[in-house]
């Protein structure tokens, strides 16, 4: 689980061009979206959908499903653990 979180943070930084941010600075439970969190938006949500599909074979058809899943690194890893294709 910890390894997945680290890997996910690195992947997010790369996919979303999060300059100036290191994996350590992304808190597991903190919101990724909105001003309180990393400031991600709807375009980033689409990038995360692709990231899940490419790396973990998980398909999300409707972007609105993503809202709860993408809340934080914690919720994302839990979803990947539960749905990833071996």
């Amino acid at each position: 689980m910890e390894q997945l979180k680290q890997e996910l943070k690195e992947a997010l930084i790369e996919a979303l061009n999060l300059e100036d941010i290191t994996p350590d600075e992304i808190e597991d439970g903190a919101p990724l979206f909105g001003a309180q969190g990393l400031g991600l938006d709807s375009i980033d949500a689409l990038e995360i959908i692709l990231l899940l599909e490419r790396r973990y074979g998980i398909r999300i058809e409707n972007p609105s499903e993503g809202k709860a899943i993408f809340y934080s690194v914690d919720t994302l890893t839990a979803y990947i653990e539960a749905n990833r294709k071996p």
Partner: protein
Amino acid sequence: MTRQPPVYINSAASIHPPLDGVGECLPGKCLTAVEPDYKRLIPDATLRRRMSRIVRMGVAAGQACLQDAAGVSPEAILTATGMGCLADTEKFMNSLLDGDEERLTPTAFIQSTFNTVGAQLALLNGNQSYNTTYVHRTFSFESALLDALLLIREREAVDVLAGAMDEQTPTLYTVLQRLGCWKRAMAGEGAAFFLLSGRRTDGTLAILQDVELFSGDYGEQAIRERMERFLLAHDAAGARTLYPADYKRFCGEYPTAASFALWYACRELREAEGKRPVLVYNAFLDAHSFILLKPV
């Protein structure tokens, strides 16, 4: 001719190839703009992280122009680009071809839109005013300039931010080389923005007198005659003319090179002693334009 209220250029900012570089035309050479510290000019990391090089150049030049005219919130943001966001266009095209239309990321597509710089400038400054983008080859920047002039003359706007940007990419360079463009010219690029206003300030650089665009098969003599008529009509017979060779030796050839020329002319006007009007003459293939500046 009815007397028009004057339109002032109150600030100007440009990102361009080094002025102390070659300084002469070396055909085939590719000039690269000197880029500033973007973190200072575009502090919003959330917006900055998605910006490609041309978008950064354009947005940074726009921001620098606004910073020089502190406190002004323009009633229009007009942008111009001849070729648009080529690197993002190519990036999305490549991912489309590589991935055979599957799993495409939207960011490059969104950023490839011609009005990206204008939109980002609006977002960064919370500017909700008129915002449009001209994309007509050599006339892109001149169209934006003309729109700005008319907006101010009509009093639809007091302050207008108008600017242009074009980037050189390896693909563009190669395609234009195959088309024979670099036999006599250097490839260039750049971004330049201007704050035009109906209000004179302490920082006013020049008066933007008029813009004229024309196209067709004009010989040197015909151009000179047209130029004389234009200057006479504007009571500027003694103007010094900046010919394409005078400024393209610094900025190179690109569709919106006239924006660099205008920045260069503003600088000359401010520094020159004699205070003569300056006529910027731009030409590419059969497209010609005059931009007339007068000292304040």
